[in-house]
């Protein structure tokens, strides 16, 4: 299995200075944006994006072309780049921000041209201080060259980019929470309906919210054509995608591949296998919110649809491998306490439920569990996400609460023995 290098090409070719504008321009950087603005039309760009069939890389996998098409007419429209990558296991945006910020800026220029947007925000999570510095530097360089600001590339078009630093709230990765945060409010997700960002987004104006990886793919798509991009990967999961591989593997890291191969192949070849030649006990196919797969399910294909058919999701493309020695209850507890810590506190089931789940798991993990706790865990999960089905049904505004349920259902479905073995039998009740 080999990587297909589109997005990470520039940073690989220029390992030393890929984040600087000179290096980027030397490799034909900004030529696509320039050509687009001077020669193309917004409709053409949208057509290319639609033809590419690219789906959002943030986790939900919504077709990008459709999203752009929804954008309502208004004088003020905004583009917000969601660089609030905080899902445990994911670090793909970090490399794009840190190593190739100009590619993102070029993507923003093309996107804004296509959607007639005059102001864009890059919302970077606060912990990404260094990537944010690189982006800020890149934005300043682009301003100096006249690629941003007034009359970019000598055209009539104006575009401003503001780099905005978050402050440590995972929930701001949810697009409406991100908008609230950007407005200087608490990062609580908004109600949908009525506040779909494409209609009522930032400052209640139509807003496009896109992931870093999605927008970084735009220059390649425009340069090579949507059709070309559509040829890569498999149907429903076109193009390449950066997977973040972590956990007990020999070579963790970001890998840009065409979707379609199996997880097993991915881990064995690019990931260099499991450390110390151990077996995989379980793995997470798409970030902390995704239900786990067992070690014997490594032949599942890395496509949005195949993973979904096996009741999980590819999500943000974070693959976490857990070897046979892993304490899965502790692992699940770690994920649940992540969601408990990051719950915004709006909806009762998520606010109270995730913390409760954390408490119960903590009890079980530390040997104070009761036999009734297993049913209790499942019932609390059921109250957060009725039916415990996949995709999860929700009792909450956003999917954060139900996300905390997936590790527990995985644990209970596939590794119930392991949980039960931790519960001392002598305690009554």
């Amino acid at each position, binding site marked *: 299995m080999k990587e297909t290098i589109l997005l990470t090409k520039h940073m690989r070719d220029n390992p030393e200075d890929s984040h600087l504008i000179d290096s980027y321009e030397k490799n034909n950087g900004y030529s696509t944006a320039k050509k687009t603005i001077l020669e193309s039309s917004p409709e053409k760009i949208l057509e290319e994006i639609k033809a590419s069939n690219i789906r959002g890389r943030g986790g939900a996998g919504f077709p990008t072309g459709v999203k752009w098409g929804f954008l309502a007419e208004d004088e003020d429209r905004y583009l917000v780049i969601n660089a609030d990558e905080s899902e445990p296991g994911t670090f793909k945006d970090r490399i794009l921000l840190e190593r190739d910020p100009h590619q993102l800026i070029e993507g923003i220029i093309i996107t804004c041209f296509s959607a007639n947007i005059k102001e864009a925000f890059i919302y970077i999570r606060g912990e990404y201080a260094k990537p944010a510095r690189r982006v800020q530097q890149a934005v300043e360089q682009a301003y100096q060259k006249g690629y941003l600001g007034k009359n970019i590339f000598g055209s009539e078009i104006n575009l401003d980019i503001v780099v905005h630093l978050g402050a440590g709230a995972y929930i701001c990765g949810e697009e409406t929470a991100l908008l609230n945060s950007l407005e200087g409010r608490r990062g609580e997700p908004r109600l949908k309906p009525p506040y779909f960002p494409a209609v009522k987004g930032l400052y209640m104006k139509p807003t496009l919210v896109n992931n870093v990886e999605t927008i970084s793919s735009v220059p390649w798509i425009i340069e090579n054509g949507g059709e070309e991009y559509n040829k890569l990967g498999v149907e429903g999961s076109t193009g390449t995608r950066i997977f973040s591989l972590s956990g007990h593997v020999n070579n963790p890291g970001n890998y840009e591949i065409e979707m379609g191969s199996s997880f097993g192949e991915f881990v064995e070849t690019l990931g260099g296998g499991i450390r110390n030649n151990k077996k995989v006990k379980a793995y997470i196919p798409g970030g902390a919110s995704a239900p786990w797969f067992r070690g014997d399910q490594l032949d599942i294909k890395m496509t949005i649809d195949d993973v979904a058919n096996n009741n999980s999701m590819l999500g943000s493309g974070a693959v976490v491998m857990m070897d046979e020695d892993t304490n899965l209850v502790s692992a699940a507890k770690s994920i649940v306490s992540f969601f408990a810590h990051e719950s915004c506190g709006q909806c009762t089931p998520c606010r109270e439920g995730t913390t409760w789940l954390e408490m119960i798991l903590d*009890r079980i993990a530390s040997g*104070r569990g*009761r036999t009734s706790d297993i049913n209790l865990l499942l019932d609390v999960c059921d109250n957060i996400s009725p039916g415990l089905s996949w995709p999860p049904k929700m009792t909450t505004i956003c999917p954060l609460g139900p996300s905390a349920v997936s590790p527990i259902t995985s644990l209970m479905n596939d590794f119930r023995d392991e949980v039960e073995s931790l519960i001392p039998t002598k*305690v*009554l*009740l």
Partner: protein
Amino acid sequence: MSDSFGLIKGLKVTFKELFRKSVTDKYPKEFREKPQRFHGRHVLNKYEDGMEKCIGCELCAGVCPAQCIYVRGEDNPEENPVSPGERYGFIYEINMLRCIYCALCVEACPTEAITMTSLFEMSVANRSEAIFDKEVLVVKDDGTPNTHEEQTKLINFDDLNTSDGWMRATSPNGNPNFQNVVNWSGSLGVGKKPPEEGQTLEEE
């Protein structure tokens, strides 16, 4: 003839009863043992540290079918609190003439502040004295009930420490840290409650 026969006939009952064992007690010289769940007059209990258990919640007054209880709560004085927590029973009055001794108040009480004793001697000189207020109802620091002076002669004080005949069972609170630990119930100086079924007393 019929007259004298009638006299004998009438005395027949008298003679018959003459040799039967008397059913009356030598009360007040002797006491009959009262059943464990006897509903006597109320007391308001204290905790071991002398704090009153009553929090003035008025649930007893609310549940009372005879409407004989009048309670008013008040903010606990910060310097010298009467009960633990924010609120205490500022006024507590029971009209004993109205009370039907149903013990619904005991059942309603969330803090086991009001309980019934085996005391039943409540003769009073006038009707207003029959309204027992906090002065009468709250137990003394040693956990024994206050009584009207007129009654003191009649009370067997030895009996009082177990006079709390009717006591509500409290379920274990479910906290795993307290499993097998018996709840403390300082009702009338009885100390720790006997363990519930399935519980064992923790060795100290």
